[in-house]
């Protein structure tokens, strides 16, 4: 990635270059002295800080999707709950990096909670004993408040989330991201450069419209050197609650996630059906998998999720060995 700042003069050699501050283009640049002193080519001190802070976190997983509304937050919360319910000794943290549209507080049912600041950093909000969450949603006064920020401010927030939250010892840190391949994603990857990210989990729906953007996200992962743990296909089939017939609401005209995964050689972890009760559980923030039997999602959602969880655990264990 180029280190040329966006507001640099023409022919800027880039702040990380050996010629930084010495090239002819640098004459007259207000930052010439900083570049020439070699200070600019030092890595961002935050990277080291974040490495220290997250040294007690075993596996860090980014949840990505080029497309919005495919269920990144839902899948993140399901996986978070799923991992946490495997054993009380497994500690899971969720970081909501969607600054402009934070959904995790609602999906996990902890809206209106407060984040406290202590000597060791921000303490996250605990959803259960071993599942904690940090989101910008906790810092907003009202649900109507909009966070109208350009990139650099969002980056600052993500840096703070990564370096100042006191997660304690974690087995898994799931980072839920907004749609796209822009500031939030680049920042998360760059700040985590030294912290050994296990990989990225991509979420998609079966239509080509969504796969198109997910292809771009896979290209992004390759460009920044992020391992793709696998793809989860969400909303793949709809079972009518009345007549139990199956229908494809979002038809996989181009073969769905399976065909894309074959084409781009990334693993497909599984498919989750479109489940109205799951959508409702997300709105009310209930724990979908342990809800009373009558309201619990159909067994196939449960099984599909279990399979996806097993594959994620296996992929993470693989990467740490």
């Amino acid at each position, binding site marked *: 990635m180029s280190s040329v700042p*966006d507001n640099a003069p023409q022919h800027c050699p880039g702040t990380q270059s050996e010629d930084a501050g010495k090239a002819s283009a640098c004459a007259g640049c207000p930052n010439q002295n900083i570049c020439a002193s070699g200070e600019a080519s030092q890595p961002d001190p935050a990277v080291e800080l974040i490495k220290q802070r997250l040294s007690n976190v075993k596996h860090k997983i980014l949840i990505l999707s080029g497309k*919005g*509304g495919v269920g990144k937050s839902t899948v993140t919360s399901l996986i978070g709950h799923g991992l946490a319910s495997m054993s009380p000794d497994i500690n899971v943290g969720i970081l909501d990096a969607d600054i*402009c549209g934070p959904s995790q507080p*609602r999906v996990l049912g902890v809206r209106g909670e407060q984040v406290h600041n202590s000597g060791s950093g921000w303490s996250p909000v605990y959803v259960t004993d071993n599942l904690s969450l940090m989101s910008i949603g906790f810092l907003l006064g009202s649900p109507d408040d*909009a966070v109208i920020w350009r990139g650099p401010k969002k980056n600052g927030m993500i840096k703070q989330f990564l370096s100042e939250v006191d997660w304690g010892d974690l087995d898994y840190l799931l980072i839920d991201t907004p749609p796209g*391949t*822009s500031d939030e994603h680049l920042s998360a990857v760059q700040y985590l450069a030294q912290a050994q990210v296990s990989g990225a989990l991509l979420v998609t*729906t079966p239509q080509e419209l969504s796969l198109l953007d997910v292809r771009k996200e896979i290209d992004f992962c390759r460009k920044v050197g992020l391992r793709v743990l696998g793809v989860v296909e969400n909303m793949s089939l709809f079972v009518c609650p*009345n007549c139990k017939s199956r229908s494809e609401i979002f038809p996989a005209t181009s073969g769905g996630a399976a065909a894309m995964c074959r084409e781009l050689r990334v693993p497909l972890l599984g498919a989750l059906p479109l489940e109205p009760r799951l959508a409702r559980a997300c709105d009310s923030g209930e724990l979908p998998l342990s809800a009373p039997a009558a309201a619990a999602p159909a067994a196939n959602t449960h099984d599909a999720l279990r399979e996806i969880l097993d594959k994620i655990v296996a992929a993470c264990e693989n990467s740490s060995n």
Partner: protein
Amino acid sequence: MLDQVKRVLLVLSGKGGVGKSTVSTQLALTLKERGYKVGLLDIDLCGPSVPYILNLEGHDVHQSAEGWVPVYMDSEQRLGVLSIGFLLTSRNDSVVLRGPKKTSIIKQFLEDVYWQELDFLVIDTPPGTSDEHITVMENLRQVPQCSAILVTTPQEVAIEDVRKEITFCRKTGIPIMGLIENMSGYECPNCSECTNIFSTGGGQSLAEYAKIPFLGSVPIDPRVGRLAGQGLCAVKELPDSKTSKVFGELVTLLGENSNGVN
């Protein structure tokens, strides 16, 4: 900038995947069917969907003395489209840009495209309230006759983000024309039982709460979903569907509004 454009319609939503691009393209196609000259600008730089939906993938944008020439859907040039998708060589290519670069591309899209005379310019946006949106707002402030159409789905998770977008519109002073609720129910093709997959009535109550006009709710209709990728207009292909009714009414309303002004 955009001097020859009579009216600008921004399609916004805080949430992703609620159907902004589907609404934008169907709106543009319906306007075109009614005989208006329409431009469609896709400023979703990281996930451009418009070229795929309109079946225009692989077309190129040409440069002329007056600026970039949009890709036209028809030989009469009544619907012009511009998207970053036309500038990419492969559909697998990602556009990894930070804010300032996105800002300058959007400025170029707004200033350097040779739209010619347009009755309507529909602008499709990415989700959120960040760089793209701030840039568009700042630049469109000088353009009269600009309003926003918000798109939501009925669940609380989406409504929550759209409430943020309403605040954004109010803060930046852009008039909200109204709210469309998408994916509001699904009729089982087998037993005709209507299931509210993503809950129901959320759009209507949000419109009442925020005191903005409600423009109608569009159900989940796989027939409409299948039109994506073919560039076909729902009003023409599926005249009896609820989707066509909502878009037909919306365009009639737009026609009345602009006649009243002129």
